[in-house]
């Protein structure tokens, strides 16, 4: 029976909690595991495959068996290690992976079938009948798989991120870490020390010897201003160039956390120097049935006694090959337990009053839900002894995980009897203490497998046994990589901390190959599993990406506009008026208003780039496919920008405000990439040009004022003569509004009507939009959004994002002539590649009485709906209120052949097949007369 025999180092303050619906009492400072142990609850879980009854085997985060679910609903946390979950008042935990209960689990039948369920068995069967894998076998396997369950509700907690800088990062707060931190601090370095436990001190805390020196070190460190001590903080990864990730637990140990407190904090720590003082953890020995509740590591058996005050059994056995076992024997004996010590070595320093067996080994155990007895083999004889707890001391594994994170491979050390770090450490990192193998040498050598029947568990959670390892080897999976993948050894939630070294040792023993030649696998981040929420931090819900608002957002909101997300922007899609119930009503009205009166649209989101310098024109001449050297001052020109591979990148305009000053526009989507590209051309390709660029997209609010009455409207607002003679088509000017506000005016048109774009500094944008509509009320001024903007440009046949899909060329867009052949420009040469230059694919228009769907494909009548029969696709489509029918634009090959013909616009997805006539894409005013009035 296991029970509390002393306050340990945690005290006696009572704390109430429940497990699987039963209430218990523990002490403040307990973990869930130690509290359950104190209450003689050894059965804590069921293994993954065989559903064998399991109890804890470790003291901390390496725990493979005691995985429970804490809480419920939005805070339900599955797969929590009971050995690290700190106890708090009212904690509610439940066991996992069992049905209907922990004691009576139906799937424990798998254990009876274990001989059939060996590693890799599923590759050899489940293939017949063919459909059964997906319909029968797999659903059954998936239902049985997994450990804990996620509630399907949004995680109610928030997580924070932080950034820290220091000169020396000490990883681990045991003696070695504390001493290293102190030394660095005395050298004047800024020191951060992280330890994953709630209390600093490392393994010393779990031994019986006094801990004064440890406490002294801690006190001194606490007094230093250049030292930051971080407990409950696990350093998770060692990334390039001295960047480390660390995770602090803030509230999982608190009964009623403050509702604003983040559950965890993910730190990015920048440190050129790191000291890995992570210690070592003990390992098991493989013997038959080494996995029963009550069988644990010897250091755990001793640690639960010394730190938590819990004695795990009345009769405790200790089985080991290592001196460390003696410490456990001494402590258990002093606590009043009957102790049996089984040592594989032939001699050891005995302990008075304790029954010792040397040259002996434990070869089997019995007791289904709790250890009842062990079978000992000595000198060819085998016999059973009763006991209810067993500690195993199979040697130590230095915690070298972080040394591998940049590809360094650990190496076997015969002295240490474990893997220590290789020579290839992350730059700046050194290893000290038990992590470096110190304190671990001695009069001993590893013992791996003493089982008789191979039912010895090497990876306890995944139920990988010695038998599995042997079978894998027999089947040719001889490398460690293959072994791991075939048997799933080391792939459980403990990330191989319990399984890897033992597995390699077992493989070495059975093949006769030295461990050095067996090799090892690498460890990669994270050191312990990290909540996905912690890695996401505050970028949750609406904060996933920033929301960019246009300058007239406030006005649009007041108008009741419906908004649409365009990249990170929120733009008004349309402005419904009273009585309108369907978006088409609003959009049709807006599109008609622009062509018949005047409309105002916020086009701030389109990229704006200010280009200045003596060589500005020459620079633009290089960046655009068409010519810009001779653009007169006061004029704007359409600019076609190609990628270096000759494909159209973006289009926009460039306005020459003065000899050395241009304003370039881009599409909304390409504002950032075009700016980046222009800086590349300047700094990397033409650094000698005297030109400077700056993005001004957010600095200027810009509005399209479009329609036959746009001149009239603007003349009331802008302090500039706007007659056709004074400010003709494509003119531009720096000017002012009548009220003195600085402004820029461009006579450019996306809609095909007489139109302008008016820009003012962004902070005046909202007010300007308001003013334009008020001042233009008698002219029928109407706000319009992205939907009407889209209808108008499709009616005009202007290419936009849908047409510039990253594969289409100037030739495809009908703009082949725009690519000047007599000057160097980005993309000119590669645009002339054979298949590009000679492509017959062209932008055309489609008309129909029925709705045409964007993404339909064009097929000639009478041909079957197959890819080989397609001519092209529809890239943009809408209802045209100005024409009274449905229209679309898109691309077809051999376009001149099909102009005027009937094709089918087919969408198999929607089961739609619509007859369309192929026409010019410029549906309205193809001669461009309305632009030039």
């Amino acid at each position: 029976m296991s029970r509390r025999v002393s306050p340990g180092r945690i005290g006696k303050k009572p704390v109430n909690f429940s497990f699987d619906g039963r209430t218990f009492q523990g002490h403040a400072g307990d973990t869930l595991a130690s509290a359950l142990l104190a209450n003689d609850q050894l059965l804590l879980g069921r293994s993954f495959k065989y559903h064998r009854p399991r109890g804890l085997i470790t003291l901390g985060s390496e725990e493979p068996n005691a995985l429970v679910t804490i809480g419920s609903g939005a805070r339900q946390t599955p797969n929590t290690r009971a050995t690290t979950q700190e106890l708090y008042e009212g904690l509610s935990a439940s066991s996992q992976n069992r049905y209907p209960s922990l004691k009576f689990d139906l799937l424990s039948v798998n254990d009876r079938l274990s001989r059939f369920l060996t590693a890799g068995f599923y590759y050899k069967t489940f293939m017949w009948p063919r459909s059964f894998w997906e319909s029968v076998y797999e659903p059954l396997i998936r239902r049985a798989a997994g450990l804990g369950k996620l509630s399907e509700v949004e995680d109610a907690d928030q997580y924070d991120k932080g950034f820290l800088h220091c000169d020396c990062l000490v990883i681990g707060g045991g003696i070695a870490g504390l001493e290293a931190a102190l030394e660095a601090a005395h050298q004047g370095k800024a020191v951060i020390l992280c330890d994953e436990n709630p209390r600093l001190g490392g393994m010393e805390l779990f031994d019986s010897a006094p801990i004064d020196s440890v406490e002294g070190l801690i006190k001194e460190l606490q007094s230093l201003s250049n030292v930051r001590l971080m407990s409950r903080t696990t350093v998770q990864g060692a990334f390039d160039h001295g960047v480390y990730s660390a995770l602090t637990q803030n509230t999982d140990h608190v009964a009623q956390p403050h509702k604003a407190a983040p559950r965890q904090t993910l730190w990015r720590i920048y440190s050129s120097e790191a000291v890995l003082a992570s210690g070592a953890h003990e390992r098991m020995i493989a013997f038959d049935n080494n996995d029963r509740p009550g069988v644990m590591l010897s250091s755990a058996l001793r640690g639960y006694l010394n730190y938590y005050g819990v004695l795990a059994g009345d009769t405790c056995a200790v089985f080991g090959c290592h001196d460390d076992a003696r410490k456990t024997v001494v402590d258990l004996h002093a606590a009043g337990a009957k102790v049996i010590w089984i040592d594989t070595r032939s001699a050891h320093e005995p302990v008075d009053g304790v029954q010792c067996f040397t040259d002996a080994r434990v070869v089997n155990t019995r007791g289904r839900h709790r250890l009842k007895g062990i079978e000992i083999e000595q000198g060819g004889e085998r016999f059973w002894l009763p006991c209810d707890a067993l500690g195993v001391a199979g040697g130590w594994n230095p915690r070298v995980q972080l040394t591998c994170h940049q590809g360094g491979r650990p190496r076997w050390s015969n002295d240490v009897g474990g893997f220590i770090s290789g020579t290839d450490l992350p730059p700046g990192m050194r290893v000290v203490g038990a992590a470096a193998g110190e304190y671990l040498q001695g009069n001993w050598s590893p013992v791996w497998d003493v089982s008789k029947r191979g039912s010895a568990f090497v990876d306890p959670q995944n139920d990988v046994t010695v038998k599995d390892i042997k079978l894998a080897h027999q089947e040719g999976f001889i490398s460690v990589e293959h072994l791991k993948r075939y048997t799933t050894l080391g792939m459980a939630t403990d990330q191989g901390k319990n399984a890897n070294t033992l597995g390699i040792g077992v493989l070495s023993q059975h093949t006769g190959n030295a461990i050095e030649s067996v090799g090892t696998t690498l460890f990669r981040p994270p050191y312990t599993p990290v909540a996905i929420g912690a890695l996401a931090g505050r970028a949750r819900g609406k904060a996933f990406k920033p929301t960019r608002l246009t300058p007239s957002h406030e006005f649009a909101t007041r108008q009741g506009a419906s908004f649409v997300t365009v990249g990170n922007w929120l733009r008004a899609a349309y402005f419904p008026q009273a009585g309108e119930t369907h978006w088409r009503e609003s959009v049709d009205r807006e599109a008609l208003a622009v062509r018949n009166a005047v409309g105002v649209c916020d086009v701030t989101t389109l990229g704006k780039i200010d280009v200045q310098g003596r060589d500005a024109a020459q620079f633009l001449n290089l960046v655009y496919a068409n010519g810009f050297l001779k653009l007169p001052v006061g004029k704007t020109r359409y600019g076609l920008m190609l990628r270096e591979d000759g494909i159209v990148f973006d289009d926009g305009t460039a306005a020459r405000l003065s000899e050395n000053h241009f304003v370039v526009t881009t599409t909304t989507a390409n504002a950032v990439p075009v700016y980046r590209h222009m800086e590349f051309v300047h700094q990397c390709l033409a650094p000698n040009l005297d030109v400077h660029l700056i993005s001004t997209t957010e600095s200027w609010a810009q509005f399209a004022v479009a329609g036959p009455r746009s001149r009239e409207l603007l003349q009331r607002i802008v302090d500039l003569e706007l007659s056709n003679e004074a400010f003709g088509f494509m003119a531009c000017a720096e000017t002012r509004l009548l009220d003195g506000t600085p402004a820029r005016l461009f006579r450019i048109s996306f809609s095909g009507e007489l139109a302008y774009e008016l820009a003012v500094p962004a902070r005046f944008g909202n007010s300007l939009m308001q003013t334009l509509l008020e001042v233009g009320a008698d002219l029928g001024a109407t706000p319009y959004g992205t939907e009407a903007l889209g209808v108008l440009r499709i009616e005009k046949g202007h290419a936009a994002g849908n047409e510039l899909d990253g594969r289409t060329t100037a030739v495809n867009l009908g703009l082949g002539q725009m690519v000047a052949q007599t000057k160097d420009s980005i993309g000119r040469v590669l645009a002339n590649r054979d298949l590009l230059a000679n492509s017959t694919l062209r932008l055309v228009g489609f008309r129909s009485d029925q709705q045409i769907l964007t993404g339909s494909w064009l097929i000639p009548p009478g041909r079957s709906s197959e890819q080989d029969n397609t001519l092209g696709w529809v890239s943009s489509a809408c209802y045209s209120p100005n024409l009274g029918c449905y229209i679309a634009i898109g691309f077809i090959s051999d376009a001149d052949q099909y102009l005027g013909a009937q094709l089918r616009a087919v969408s198999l997805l929607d089961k739609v097949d619509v007859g369309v006539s192929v026409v010019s894409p410029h549906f309205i005013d193809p001669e461009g007369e309305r632009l030039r009035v």
Partner: protein
Amino acid sequence: MLINHPLLGLRDAQEFVYKGDASLLQRPQCESDNALDAFTNYAYLRSNPAGLHQELWYHEQGDRSWLVVTRNTLTHEIVNVELASEVDA
């Protein structure tokens, strides 16, 4: 990763956008006889070494300068950083 910006000192690589091989600095002459081949190789062929690699990074969330970074693609160690505009192409 950290990039030692020649003007600003060590910056987290997250502030930058990566483009590719710094051989892009050697843009061919468009008027040469084999311009098509030259541009095709320039745009599409890469040495892609396992070892030291000169590459272009753009400090988009900083000072918007283009840098030529010499970095070991096996170890990620950065051995040199300079402004692209100052490199003799």
